[in-house]
């Protein structure tokens, strides 16, 4: 085994506090650490200002504080081809994509990992809240210790080959502790606000952004029994279970998005947060990926998440093919959304995941969901 000082670790630095502290911890442990900033999106405005410039400035400051070399690498083209194109296609199909899952799969832990290896790296590290642990000869991906921050949901598509090369230096820490370390060390990003939303949209108006790339087709909203309830701005702007932005007033319970009728360009809405039509009991999912190479039984029970930060639900998983699973829930689940990931867990271990395709209630396909 290599000595720690001869072990080269490339850390992906975003200019945020998490990756800053991750880099610091690696350096403190004695690794040969190199900080690299990834530029995946260009939002340069008419004044030549790009958010990446400020973030890179922070990377430079932090790397100089820690005492590690820093570089930047450009993956705009790969990101556009692999992530953004998928993102638009999914919206066009009336689904709600998860670009972060795709970015981790195709960019951070593929193109970027290859770049790191080309630079002689033994490992690629990131500031994700997740953990890796070798058990029975397999590298397992475990939830981040901070349950509120755990990011394994977004990392569900990583395979064994990728996980063997990965380090998550802050995965065993609470977010609060990460901030504390940054403050103690006086890192330039110690008090920087966490980024929110989809990275390439940032703080901007989502509707306006999407409208620049996809034509929005206005239409009507209807209840499940066909009663017209006003107009929508374009189906792609709405996601299953969404409450805000419908503009339906009046007395009674608030209104929610129940589903979409793509053919008629109708947005289906219903009253009450626990509207029966929002609940389903099983789903099928494709793009199935497992974190280990261990052979999977044809069917097994575990827990699953259908959205980031959701509580786990007990499920029964049946492998329909190499790529496809049927997932049956122990209890009905609200607002399952095609395009999002279903991610499987056994205790603290993330087993892998897939992309939600079809949603069923008591065996009947809910066509209005997608």
């Amino acid at each position, binding site marked *: 085994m290599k000595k720690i000082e001869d072990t080269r670790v490339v850390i992906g630095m975003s200019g945020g506090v998490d990756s800053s502290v991750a880099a610091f911890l690696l350096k403190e442990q004695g690794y040969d650490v190199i900080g690299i900033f990834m530029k995946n999106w260009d939002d340069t405005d008419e004044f030549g200002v790009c958010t990446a410039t400020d973030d890179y400035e922070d990377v430079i400051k932090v790397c100089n504080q820690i005492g590690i070399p820093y570089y930047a690498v*450009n993956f705009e083209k790969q990101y556009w081809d692999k992530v953004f194109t998928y993102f638009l296609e999914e919206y066009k199909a009336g689904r709600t994509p998860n670009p972060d899952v795709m970015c981790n799969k195709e960019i951070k832990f593929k193109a970027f990992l290859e*770049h790191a290896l080309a630079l002689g790296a033994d490992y690629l590290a990131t500031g994700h809240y997740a953990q890796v642990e070798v058990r029975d000869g397999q590298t397992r991906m475990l939830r981040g210790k901070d349950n509120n921050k755990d990011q394994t949901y977004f990392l569900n598509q990583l395979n064994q080959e990728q996980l063997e090369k990965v380090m998550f230096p802050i995965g065993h820490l609470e977010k609060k502790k990460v901030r504390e370390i940054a403050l103690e060390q006086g890192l330039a990003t110690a008090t920087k606000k966490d980024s929110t939303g989809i990275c390439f949209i940032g703080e901007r108006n989502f509707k306006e952004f999407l409208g620049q790339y996809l034509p929005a087709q206005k239409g009507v909203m209807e209840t499940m029994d066909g009663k017209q309830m006003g107009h929508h701005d374009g189906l792609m702007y709405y996601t299953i279970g969404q409450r805000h932005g419908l503009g339906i007033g009046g007395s009674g319970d608030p209104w929610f998005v129940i589903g979409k009728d793509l053919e008629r360009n109708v947005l289906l809405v219903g009253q009450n947060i626990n509207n029966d039509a929002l609940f389903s009991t099983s789903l099928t999912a494709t793009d199935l990926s497992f974190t280990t190479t261990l052979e999977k039984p044809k069917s097994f029970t575990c827990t699953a998440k259908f959205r980031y930060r959701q509580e786990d639900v007990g499920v029964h998983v049946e492998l329909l093919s190499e790529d496809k699973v049927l997932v049956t829930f122990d209890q009905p689940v609200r607002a399952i959304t095609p395009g999002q990931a279903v991610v499987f867990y056994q205790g603290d271990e993330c087993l892998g995941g897939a992309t939600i395709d079809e949603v069923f209630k008591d065996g009947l396909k809910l066509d209005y969901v997608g």
Partner: protein
Amino acid sequence: MTRIYLDHAATTPMAEEVIQTFTKEINEEFGNASSIHQTGRNARKKLDQSRHVFAASIGAHETEITITSGGTEADNYALFGTAYARKSEGKHIITTQIEHHAVLHACEQLEREGFDVTYLPVNKEGVIDVNDLKNSLRDDTILVSVMYANNEVGAIQPIQAIGELLKDHPAYFHTDAVQAYGSIEIDVHALHVDLLSVSSHKINGPKGIGFLFVGKGIALKPLFYGGQQERKKRAGTENIPAVVAFAKAVELKQSKLQENITRNVQLKQAFVQQLTSNGVQFTVNGPETDVLSHVLNISIPKTDVETFLVQLDLAGIDASSGSACTAGSIDPSHVLVAMYGENTPVLRNSVRFSFGINNTEQQVIEAANKISKIIH
């Protein structure tokens, strides 16, 4: 790890004598050259002596030297100064596609202000055709700005021929000599140039200082207003220690010009030979002759500059590409695009090595060996 610095076209270390001069001046002198007392007069004397050195180095008169904060200011002063002074005579400016951004971005700003700029193309070796310039000249052309030698590929431009051509045209002729100065003997009168930019930190002088040669009878609108410094052409209290150290650097360069050229050519040859004998496949970007002795730009097939420069850095070699890679935005070098077009792998696999005073033959051979190791 002792680093091997092969990026002298970006900046150079100060020569030993320059450091001595600089520190001596900082220690001993602080006067304001505009003051009427003895302390001020001491500073003024040094300023005048330095200006004499600058003028003599290019065959100019002392009154033709305006000291600036460096090459960028000299270029901006030449361009905006001419444009604003002559806008009633015409709004046409001619430059090239391969200028430094200090010229190109200034021209783009002038376009936004209503000036009309022609950007001359170059051939595959990075050299403009004087006939193109001749055909672009108009009655309302007020300025022609062509760099003396390109900073990325070292291609020397036909400055004398352009000077001859413009002798009978009212357009001012500016040349950005920032990369050429100190590597080529320059005589402004033989060249018929009106404006010539020079920077100190490219010739082993301190940073933040340079000058613009402004020929007799050439009137520019100043960029800075304030005191009466530089014959009212450039307000601001002079940085005397930097000026004096710059003058020392000029003297050193002038006295060793031929020697330096010979040495740089030897270093370049040794480097190229070592790469070749190590079996590294590469082609040279830029002309074979009429090229700066200290600049070597090579394209190495199957490498990627973004990765390669990092690998070089991690191996202890400082080099660079023409690409601006701030915050990961890799814009291909505008110089290579002008030479080869948009669709060639050369844009993604070219690296510039540039040699200088502290380099040894042993260093460049070691660098070539490390490069071979990275590639194979």
